[in-house]
């Protein structure tokens, strides 16, 4: 099994005729994902790659194909509107890849997404992949992944690939890899993924890749301490990053923290999370824990 996506995933791509959307739709098809529909307003009636029907609206696509998941490759200024449309059409899972969405747009979208009981992953994320189910939703390269029993959750894109690549080369497969995205406002956080991996009978251990900034990793560490019984291995990128020239006081006041690597690593250690000093350390640490 896997988290959030599986063999029953029926995928719809919003922005399927765009440059990014069409490139990645092709990759998802090649990987074996059940890509059942595309949406681009004004291009309804066309067919993508000779087999995927394109619709003008998400609601029409859902009615015609029974799609249950959407992945969004719509330009930044229209991306929040695409999230509203997918949520309004009743899709239970929305994955938003788009980078550069104004944070106020997401602040307005989130209450609506929650009111509809929808899970949003992202924005500004690489999406997720469940190798055992051949379900790839997003941009994580399929060829570096392999089926197995390690769950991975990460705030970044290419760093995820680096770590997954180490796992696969060492013969350690993955149940699901999820990139939650690096924006200030995201739909699914570390804790949501940790809870899902903890509850997934086919995940034995969890890898968590964090970054400096914010308090998400600290909150996740507290959750691990209280509720996660599976082994967790963690990494924080940005240990050598310079302290920014900060302006204003509100940022420090609201979080009560500056989100440094030291704070996050201390929280990991306190929660019993094994700390990777380098990306390659993931292999040894997992072997010693599993």
């Amino acid at each position: 099994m896997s988290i959030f996506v599986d063999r029953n995933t029926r995928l719809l791509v919003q922005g399927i005729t765009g440059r990014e959307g069409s490139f990645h739709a092709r990759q998802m098809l090649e990987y074996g994902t059940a890509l059942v529909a595309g949406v681009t307003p004004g291009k309804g009636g066309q067919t993508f790659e000779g087999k995927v029907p394109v619709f003008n609206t998400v609601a029409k696509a859902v009615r015609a194909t029974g799609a249950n998941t959407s992945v969004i490759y719509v330009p930044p200024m229209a991306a929040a509107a695409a999230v509203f449309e997918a949520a309004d059409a009743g899709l239970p899972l929305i994955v938003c890849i788009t980078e550069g969405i104004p944070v106020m747009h997401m602040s307005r979208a989130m209450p609506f997404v929650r009111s509809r009981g929808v899970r949003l992953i992202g924005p500004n994320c690489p999406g997720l992949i469940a190798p055992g189910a051949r379900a790839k939703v997003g941009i994580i390269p399929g060829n570096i992944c392999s089926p197995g029993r390690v769950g991975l959750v990460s705030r970044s894109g290419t760093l995820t690939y680096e770590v997954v690549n180490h796992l696969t080369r060492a013969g350690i497969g993955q149940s699901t890899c999820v990139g939650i995205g690096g924006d200030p406002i995201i739909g699914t956080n570390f804790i949501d993924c940790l809870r899902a991996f903890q509850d997934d009978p086919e995940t034995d251990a969890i890898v968590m890749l964090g970054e400096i900034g914010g308090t998400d990793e600290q909150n996740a560490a507290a959750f691990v301490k209280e509720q996660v019984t599976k082994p967790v291995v963690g990494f924080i990128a940005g240990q050598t990053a310079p302290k920014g020239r900060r302006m204003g006081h509100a940022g420090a006041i609201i979080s009560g923290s500056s989100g440094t690597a030291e704070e996050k690593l201390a929280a990991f250690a306190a929660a019993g999370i094994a700390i990777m000093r380098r990306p390659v350390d993931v292999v040894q640490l997992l072997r010693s824990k599993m």
Partner: protein
Amino acid sequence: MNLHEYQARALLKAAGIPMFEGDVASTPTEAEAVARRLGGTVVIKAQVHAGGRGKAGGVKLARNPSEAADLSAQILGMTIKGLTVQKVLVVPAAEIATESYVGLIMDRDTQRPVFMVSSAGGVDIEEVAAKTPEKIVRLPVDPTYGLFPHQALELAFVLYRDFAQVKAAARIMEQLYAAFVNNGASLAEINPLVTTPDQRVLALDAKIVIDDNELFWRPDLGVLRDDSAEEPSEAAARRANLTFIKLDGNVGCVVNGAGLAMATMDLVKYYGGEPANFLDIGGSSSPEKVINALKIITADRNVKAILFNIFGGITRTDDVANGIVAATSQFKVDVPIVIRLTGTNEVEAIRILEGVGMRALSDMDQAVEQVVQLARGAA
């Protein structure tokens, strides 16, 4: 994008928030003229993107216009936290009865704009937050509806007892929220919000940070960016659509993706080196981007060796290889380059590099160790 105090003042003033008169000056003569127009004692404030301006000597009191000219001459051109002061703000030295804090920030946890107000305003607000957090009242705003009138009043009652002042402050809360939304801000702060001996409520200092993602469709805000307030190489990188931060080390780094870029810097340090920069060439990397990246890095004379660390996903590694070949044929790179690339189109990329006698590694640790050795040998 950070705004200067004088720019933030202009946006808040346009939203109707009452303020003391004042103006910005780039020369001592201009400062003298502003001081003469204002009359009386004035405060000269350095306009740089750095906190602790007062402690660094960037804020001074001038009793008359000629003193304003002299003190401006001292402040203009001085360096605060590595940034040169190009402009000063001249405002009247107001008589103040009370100082409060009003901040509005886009909060990650509640995913909403959150007001924070405290009657203990002024320079030590962070200390107040750390030691007596109960003195700061927070209020999240649902952006679907905006700030309700009763919420604005609730915040104002935290600050004042006199109902005329409460009403004035509530109006300022509403105006601040409007300025925050209309200008695509991620932070808007009035510190301090003051009362005068004659009972008026005014904003004395303002800070605004604009969400960079808004700038794409808000060219009117984009023009507020002050290139001179940035490291020149960082401004050049931004114009080339690269994310770059200059550091003090000697290992130049070119990486795709922010997380991997940070992890690469960390690994340079792990193997005993010092990164010269953070540089993310982003997702879809054209050869052009690679050329610009190499130009910016080689302009730093401290750089003794350069590392490319590319994990191709969306990024095609052959594009990066073409960029490296084009750049090194266009201009002379006189420090060694270590290339690590793996992922999308790597076979083609390696063929391109080998065609000009360059080689590529596939392992990140091996590449970082090698570049650190080379930088050390050259230093």
